[in-house]
């Protein structure tokens, strides 16, 4: 072969070679075709290819890899299953993606103490699968729970429908093993109920991998309830559904979940494989889940029936049968998947408003989207005031992408103006980092930055996330718009 026509070999990546030597060659990917899958997470609006992907098998391997990356001053991007929706796992500054996909072991399960010690690459639903036969469950249940990892849940303080009663991830994490940016391993909390001195669990949960990589966790499990009843109520107006939610809470009922789906979501679901038999003529479907002892559930069910009955529902269905309940939830759980029929791409937003402002918030969201000629549908955790405005779009249409992003910003501003906040469970990531000044002043933002620098002085941990770009260090944020 003529040397002049030979394809030049790529330059040696000494950091990747060192990591391969330390962890094994099959633990590092650098081939472009393998890196493609790690360009973004569930937020496909922004993509960037990493320099390498590392697939460690243990905390010790994570620590060794991170130590090498730190020495080479390479940005470190932790990743679970890549189901996040705020771009938290998108390597906007290139660098190395550290995937926990191979760390899925249940290290210890103690049914008496109701504790599980897990590696955080474990898929959320797998944990409940492991512990259910002992009458226990893990409460946080994001819609992606069949695919998302517990590590991603920790990073984003993930929630889910049942967090209305049981709280978000932070309330279920008792201890964490953290690999800091230098490769040092620190234990935060543990199997005992209270940590010593500062509750650093709170600081790390929801920190989006910017303070370290959480590799293992002690998680609190809870007993399965004696009875679960799911009630579906359909209404001719969204306003009536929202009033039902307010009245249920005001009446002192403590449901496990209070979820609402709007007409466009119902339409998408019923036309998809996730069809659950929701009434197509309804403007809103309210799902109420009650759990507890049979008498407590019977009492609450009566209250919910009376409250909703007074608001002129189109239909009320209640069931305690597992199969029927599963059907009622099928549409809700499959809502985001069902949107795939509407357009090639979906932007799932996440904002919170006070529960009392739900009708006003939803009307505003719809108006914002209509003004920008983007298609909006809503499915949300009504009990928490946690909205998920969904915008279906075609990523190949640059103008539509621009309008989608513009609508996203306007929705964020609108929710904050109502006394709400930017995210209830998806985190800030790269989706909303420029919106943070809507909720925090300069003092807080600088404080966040300083806190981050205190734990990661070189700003290597998931750079470009959680803070506005101007506070994210010296390396410019790369990334290309998906257009």
């Amino acid at each position, binding site marked *: 072969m003529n040397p002049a026509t030979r394809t030049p070999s790529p330059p040696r990546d000494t950091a990747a070679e060192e990591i391969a030597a330390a962890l094994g060659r099959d633990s590092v990917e650098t081939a472009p075709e393998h890196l493609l899958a790690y360009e973004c997470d569930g937020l496909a609006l922004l993509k960037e290819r990493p320099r390498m992907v590392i697939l460690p098998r243990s905390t010790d391997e994570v620590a060794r890899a991170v130590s090498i990356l730190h020495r080479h001053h390479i940005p470190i991007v932790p990743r679970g299953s890549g189901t996040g929706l705020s771009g938290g796992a998108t390597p906007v500054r290139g660098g190395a993606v550290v995937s926990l996909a191979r760390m899925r072991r249940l290290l210890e399960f103690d049914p008496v*103490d109701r504790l599980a010690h897990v590696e955080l690459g474990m898929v959320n639903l797998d944990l409940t699968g492991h512990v259910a036969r002992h009458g226990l469950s893990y409460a946080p249940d994001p819609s992606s729970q069949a695919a998302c990892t517990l590590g991603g849940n920790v990073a984003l303080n993930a929630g889910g429908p049942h967090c209305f009663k049981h709280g978000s991830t932070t309330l279920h994490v008792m201890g964490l093993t953290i690999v800091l940016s230098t490769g040092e391993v620190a*234990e935060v909390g543990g199997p005992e109920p209270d940590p010593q001195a500062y509750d650093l669990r709170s600081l790390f*949960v*929801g920190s989006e991998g910017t303070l370290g990589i959480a590799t293992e966790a002690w998680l609190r499990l809870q007993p399965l309830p004696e009875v679960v009843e799911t009630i579906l109520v359909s209404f001719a107006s969204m306003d009536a559904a929202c009033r039902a939610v307010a009245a249920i809470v005001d009446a*002192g009922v403590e449901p496990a979940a209070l979820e609402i789906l709007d007409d466009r979501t119902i339409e998408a679901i019923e036309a998809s494989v996730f069809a659950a038999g929701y009434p197509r003529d309804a403007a809103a479907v309210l799902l109420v889940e009650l759990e507890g002892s049979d008498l407590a559930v019977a009492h609450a069910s009566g209250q919910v029936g009376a409250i909703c009955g007074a608001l002129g529902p189109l239909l009320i269905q209640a069931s305690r049968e597992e199969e029927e309940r599963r059907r009622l939830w099928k549409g809700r759980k499959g809502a985001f998947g069902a949107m795939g029929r509407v357009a090639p791409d979906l932007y799932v937003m996440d904002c919170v408003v006070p529960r009392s402002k739900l009708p006003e918030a939803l009307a505003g969201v719809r108006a914002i989207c209509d003004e920008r000629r983007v298609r909006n549908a809503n499915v949300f955790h009504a009990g928490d005031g946690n909205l998920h405005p969904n915008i279906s779009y075609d990523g190949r249409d640059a103008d539509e992408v621009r309008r989608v992003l513009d609508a996203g910003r306007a929705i964020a501003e609108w929710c904050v103006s109502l006394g709400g*906040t930017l995210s*209830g469970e998806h985190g800030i990531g790269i989706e909303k980092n420029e919106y943070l000044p809507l909720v925090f002043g300069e003092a807080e933002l600088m*404080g966040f930055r300083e806190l981050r620098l205190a734990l990661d002085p070189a700003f290597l941990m998931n750079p470009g996330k959680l803070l506005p770009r101007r506070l994210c260090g010296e390396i410019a944020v790369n990334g290309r718009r998906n257009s």
Partner: protein
Amino acid sequence: MTSRLPKELLDELKEAAGSAGRVRRSEDEAHAEVRVSDADGIARVLRISGRERIPVFTRLFPFGAVERAQAGIRSILLDMTAHSGIVRYSASDRVLTARAGTPLADISAAAAEHRQRLPVDPPAPRAMTIGEAVAKNEWGPLRTGWGTLRNYVIGCQVVLPNGTLWKSGGPSVKSATGYDFHRLQVGALESLAVGSEFTVRLTTAPVVRVGVVSHGGTFPTMLGRAFRVRELPDPPAALFVLERAGQAPRLCTLYEGVPAAVDRAASRLEGLFAGERVMGSALDTLLDEAREAPLEPGFRTLGIPGLTVRLTCRPSRLLDAVEAAQRVLEDLESPVNLCAHPDVAAADLWIANRAGADSSAVQEQVAAAVAAAAGGAVRLRRPHETHGGVRTGAPTAGLRLLERVKHHFDPANLLNPGVLPYPAAPAAATPRAEVQST
């Protein structure tokens, strides 16, 4: 040699406290007690503290003195008890914001008007302020069913040691927006920042409450029964075994909710372990006993100092931990009282410290015994002491992390110093990233 606070500094502190504030100097003229009534006053005092390098100790409890100040060493006692009042309350959203010096009883009274409550029940609710409860992560018997303040604090406004006002979280009951500093404040003993306001979510107050008290058995028997209660389908709101010296242990279970369900749960328990129902004021007294007795045995009545340790461990190790602690305390030749919460995996043990044993030394001994027997942790529990202190043995990566966090917020170690057993570490020497100007 006594280091006096100069008059000019006292004048400055008076000005910082504002017209509603108050400043007093101690007899040795080394300490100033500054009562403030707003966040601005807190900020001004902290700025003076930082400039003059004078430690600040906060007081959030209306009686009892903070004993951390050392004779002859200058310090400022920042009295927050006048910084009180409910700032906002949205009953429809079940969210309430109160200033740090607001007694929990005031919050309960406001919430009760809407059949709501903050389901955290630390001792002395008339005196206990929300700030104190957050700082010390105070809890009571309801922790079994309802958790701690960590479950309910959803936002805070704090003043950093440099006088900067800072907020975290807010009125949204669910948030994944920015670092969670408000929960970091829970149990931080005000050593990272001074809490000015706290926002909490409330829950619906129960329609009825019924307690069931069972007698007849040793402490291990009662603890075994408690674990059986834990497995029943009706989750209790409180579950504890109370053993006063010289009395038989009692297993106490509280059910809350709607009448039919509570009645059935209580009946089920009565069928298992012959017990008696307790309601109304008798129930309140029982819960008070579990909450408050460990705090001050003889404090008011006999003037005898009490010594209380709180141990925590995994639930299944609770008996081992309690027995290990009992053995140490019995050596002090004082009858041991105890209240154990099996679902929480915590127990308070207290004695009337007639022998005047050194409490820190006792804590060390109990901690070592509990750690060896059950892998648990122990802290002193004295109601009027701001600091619990951490005893963790040799420095570990986790401890270094704690130090870095403390050092980040309070580099001069002036705010309620002494929480960590080691001096705050200097910042890591790694070069820091520069801010990109845009």
